[in-house]
């Protein structure tokens, strides 16, 4: 049975039997996370938490999964709002904690670019699926900023050693490379094959007992320290602090002019 709950146009939410699908819907901005997007994702995740589903798939509309934070919003000379960076990053931190705490098993279906906070979002999910040609990575340091807000999730996903290498070197990698280091768990050969693979994985997960799935996920969250809210919120403050420095703002402005 398909049910399309009432949500804002910033995200699309579809519930089909045991599987909910949340689509970030800002394709003209590569699904970059604005206040509107983050608010809509919070609302959608609240709705999913209380639904009779056992799997949540998160994906992006159009060619990208999520390009990360909305750089126009955090560039002070454009937005005129010096506090926007911290508000967005705190909202993102709260969203990651909320998604991690869901009783549903979460699947990131990375249809295209997953960059910075967008790539961090994939690390919060329990399973990440992508395709060989997708682009993933953490280029924050290339812009003089610090991915602290998502670092705890990246460390949990990759292990600290590979997380250090990946976040300190910056840059972007292909879906193939992301699969090789464990950032992606299942890889479709190309973009066209992603939907079918995502459906197969989601149905397989949904075939498990919902109570067994949520109990297992909860234990894994306890074991790996996922409920340490203070660490993630402290990371958001650090990211915001670095983001507001003149050096970082200049690097962002330079990037925006390209």
């Amino acid at each position, binding site marked *: 049975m398909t049910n399309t709950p009432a949500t804002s146009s910033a995200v699309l939410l579809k519930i089909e039997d045991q599987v909910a699908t949340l689509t970030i819907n800002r394709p003209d901005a590569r699904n970059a996370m604005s206040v509107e997007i983050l608010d809509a994702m919070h609302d959608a995740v609240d709705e999913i938490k209380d639904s009779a589903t056992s799997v949540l798939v998160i994906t992006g509309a159009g060619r990208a999964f999520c390009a990360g934070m909305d750089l126009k919003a955090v560039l002070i000379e454009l937005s005129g709002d010096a506090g926007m960076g911290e508000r967005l990053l705190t909202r993102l931190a709260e969203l990651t904690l909320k998604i991690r705490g869901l009783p549903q098993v979460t699947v990131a279906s990375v249809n295209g670019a997953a960059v910075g906070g967008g790539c961090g979002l994939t690390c919060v999910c329990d399973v990440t699926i992508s395709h060989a040609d997708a682009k993933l990575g953490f280029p924050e340091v290339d812009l003089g900023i610090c991915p602290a807000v998502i670092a705890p999730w990246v460390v949990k996903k990759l292990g600290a050693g590979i997380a250090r290498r990946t976040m*300190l070197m910056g840059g972007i990698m292909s879906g193939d490379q992301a699969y090789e280091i464990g950032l992606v768990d299942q890889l479709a050969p190309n973009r066209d094959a992603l939907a079918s693979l995502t459906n197969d994985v989601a149905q397989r997960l949904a075939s498990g007992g919902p109570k067994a799935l949520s109990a297992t996920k909860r234990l894994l969250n306890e074991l790996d320290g996922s409920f340490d809210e203070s660490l993630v919120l402290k990371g958001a403050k650090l990211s915001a602090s670095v983001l507001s420095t003149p050096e970082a703002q200049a690097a962002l402005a330079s990037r925006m002019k390209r």
Partner: protein
Amino acid sequence: MIETREESGVLIIELARADKRNAMLPEMLDALYSAITSKDDVLAITLIGQGKTFCAGFDLKACTKDTGGDTMRELLTGLSRCVCAFRAHTAPVVLGVHGAAVAGGCALLGGADIVVADRNAKLGYPVVKIGVSPAVSSPFMLASMRPGIVRTRLLDTDLIDGEHAYKLGMVHELCDAPSDVHDRALEIAKSIASKPGSGCRETKLWLNEVCAVSDERANAGLNASLELTGNDEERERLASLWGES
């Protein structure tokens, strides 16, 4: 025994005892510690070894001559101090392993943020066979690798090649030839040093906090290794290396 220079914001530290495969002496580790801590304004650090191999570990001849175990104690303490100093430095550390990183030489990986090695480099901790505990390395390995892998690597005396170490996450990037390792390590360090602002520095310090190796844990590892030092098993096994009994 240690040579340093700076290029484009990168502090390049070279282990310079090539005729002994860069085997470490206490005074060499003192010099390494001074090199790391004397420069707090660099943007990246590269550690590489001169000659045919990165580092063969402790100078076991020196340890064998000192039957009281003081040399081994100084080496273990100096090694732990250097690894902690690399970790604490604000600049990301890129380590280039060509040829071999064995025992104490492999333990230096614990202080690195990024490790480059050649595919056929030999890596491992074969020290229990000489009666030495690699416990000193365990807190740093556990902070960067999966616990199951750490157990196997510290207890099994086999050496593994660079390709295998890459699959286990001990090494983060592979070069086809040993001769490519230094250039690639320096290239990565220069790339980090060229990035704008304080993003890299703050990211490293934050990662240190997220995956912390507390002083207490580092000291516990060191003390576990020190407690065994100078005992009969170690003395006999070290002596047998040189055909003495």
